[in-house]
């Protein structure tokens, strides 16, 4: 599938929202006029300098961007190979990269005259970020969250409530991110006249994968400039964790046409790729249609979506953004997977070497970094996205480590 290499990897999707064979707008007819409207409005916003100015201003003064680029000296020493650098998106307001996208989408919602916001959330980071921007702009907000995730991520549930959001636990299916997204789509289809759905990752019907990627690309644009500024060159390898894939695309996209920059996306291998208790859609799934787009999915031979597993609620999703599906087939990005145990080890390694408690999602990236750094020369440079902080995860980690809190 890599026989015809394109001139650029940065001009996707096409005008129908397709990334090669992936993406598209696989939604019920009720939603079609709305996603077409959203696309028109997004094109208008892209061409409107005032929209970009307001987005940039909020990112700087409300989110706290640019996020630092940090050389992890002690981790580098501990690993004994490549230099490890982090893009510190866990220092953003609300503690993860999710807020970048929420700022962009709520500005779009207001442009469209929508007065009610809904969102789905897995780990709760996107729910918190959505509740935050809704509070900031005074819009009512309903967050759908799988009942199992409500249990796993209770601190984030309370945060959302403090911010004025209504949190609706979803009990259908296994009660995780996929089921929350189904319920979000059901709400949207019944409330299309006044409701804007802030999707949290670079997936869903076109134009969501594109616009989420664009809003998150601030990560990679900053990192590119910061790298040039700090070491006078681009990194050799970019690493990011992948659930739906928005933080990874945000980091990767501005570098896609730099042939010397390799990229590694890290999926959640859960208890291991050999069984079915993992959330690695690209490495363990097949192309199919779910939640408005065609992409790699965890599914059985009849096309029923299967329930994966990851210690990280934010990676526990049976699909993947369609641009990753395309980048995988094109061979531009390499994808690997990391188990729960490896992620837990990496979590503790970063705590102890750098004094940073990472979220379980980037702990997967850090685990992959630890493996790769050892195989790379000392003058090579790895840049990983530290896309969320771990405060929300300490209960999960304590439970897995057998610690009573």
């Amino acid at each position, binding site marked *: 599938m890599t026989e015809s290499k394109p001139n650029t990897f940065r001009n996707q999707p096409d005008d129908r929202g397709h990334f090669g064979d992936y993406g598209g707008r696989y939604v019920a007819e009720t939603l079609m006029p709305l996603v077409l409207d959203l696309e028109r409005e997004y094109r208008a916003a892209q061409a409107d300098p005032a929209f970009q100015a307001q987005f940039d201003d909020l990112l700087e003064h409300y989110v706290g961007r640019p996020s630092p680029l940090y050389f992890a000296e002690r981790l580098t020493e501990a690993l004994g190979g490549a230099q490890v650098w982090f893009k510190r998106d866990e220092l953003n307001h609300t503690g993860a990269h999710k807020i970048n996208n929420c700022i962009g989408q709520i500005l779009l919602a207001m442009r469209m005259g929508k007065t009610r916001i809904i969102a789905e959330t897995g780990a709760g980071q996107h729910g918190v970020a959505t509740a935050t921007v809704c509070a900031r702009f005074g819009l009512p907000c309903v967050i759908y969250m799988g009942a199992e995730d409500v249990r796993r991520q209770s601190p984030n549930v309370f945060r959302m409530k403090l911010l004025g959001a209504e949190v609706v636990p979803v009990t259908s299916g296994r009660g995780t991110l996929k089921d929350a997204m189904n319920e979000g789509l059901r709400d949207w289809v*019944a409330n299309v006249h006044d409701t804007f759905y802030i999707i949290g990752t670079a997936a869903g019907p076109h134009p969501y994968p594109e616009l989420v990627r664009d809003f998150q690309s601030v990560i990679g644009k900053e990192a590119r400039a910061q790298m040039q500024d700090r070491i006078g060159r681009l990194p050799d390898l970019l690493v990011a964790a992948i659930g739906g894939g928005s933080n990874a695309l945000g980091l990767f996209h501005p570098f896609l046409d730099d042939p010397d920059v390799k990229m590694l996306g890290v999926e959640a291998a859960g208890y291991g790729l050999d069984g079915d208790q993992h959330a690695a859609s690209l490495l363990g799934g097949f192309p199919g249609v779910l939640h408005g787009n065609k992409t790699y999915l965890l599914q059985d031979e009849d096309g029923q979506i299967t329930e994966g597993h990851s210690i990280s609620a934010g990676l526990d999703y049976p699909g993947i953004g369609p641009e990753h599906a395309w980048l995988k087939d094109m061979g531009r990005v390499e994808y690997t997977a990391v188990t729960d145990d490896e992620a837990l080890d990496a979590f503790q390694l970063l705590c102890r070497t750098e004094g940073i408690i990472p979220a379980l999602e980037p702990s997967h990236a850090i685990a992959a970094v630890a493996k790769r750094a050892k195989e790379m020369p000392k003058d090579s440079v790895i840049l990983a996205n530290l896309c969320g902080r771990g405060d929300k995860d300490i209960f999960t980690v304590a439970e897995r480590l057998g610690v009573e809190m």
Partner: protein
Amino acid sequence: MTRLSAAFSKSRTALVCFLTAGDGDTAANLDALVEGGADVIELGMPFTDPMADGPAIQKANIRSLGAGTTTADVLRIATEFRGRHPDVPLVLMGYANPMIRRGPEWFASAAKDAGVDGVICVDIPPEEDDALGPALREAGIAPIRLATPTTDDKRLPAVVDGSEGFLYYVAVAGITGMQQAAIESIEANVSRIKRSTDIPVAVGFGVRTPEQAGEIARVADGVVVGSALVELVAEHGANAPAKLRELTSALSQAVRTAR
């Protein structure tokens, strides 16, 4: 004349009845619908993620999949139904992923072999229909499209073009089995749609009672009832056929005497 066009060419409105395949004794339940007077059978293909369905049909999907229903089982239910009822039109309704998993051509040909007359796919809009729709047409199966209250006049031609058998008008912007739309809105939308197509228009979503069905039958070519029937299957299990026959008869009576 196809089985579908025959069902819609009568001088009265057609009653379309939906059940989820593999939820309870589907063969007995479908027979009860036919005995009660259903003109078209809509057989739901269970899916793990029925995004357009309300609680009643969601649960039916979960029960069916929980009982181990496979695509082969759905096709077998269809084949056996066709054997027992050579003249009753049978339509499969479901979501894209189970339909395209082995390839749209495979699905179209398997459905044809099972005696299926039409296919409604909830999440393939005209914009994405360059594989499934053509495969169905090639196999001689009617691809049945959905129009909704949000389908404006500009979009309507794209939806109507390529729809065969009948057009399914989704009366409410929402999920199945919830509130009913006002009859005025249904009437206005059905006549709007009929100005742009000659194919029959069936109305569904939120139709639960004979009274509602009768009201809609005055303005549409078909009335679709789903959740109310699926709830009877959930509630009455092995005794569902008698209840289904009873409700279908009442629905059929209301639809037949509507105009």
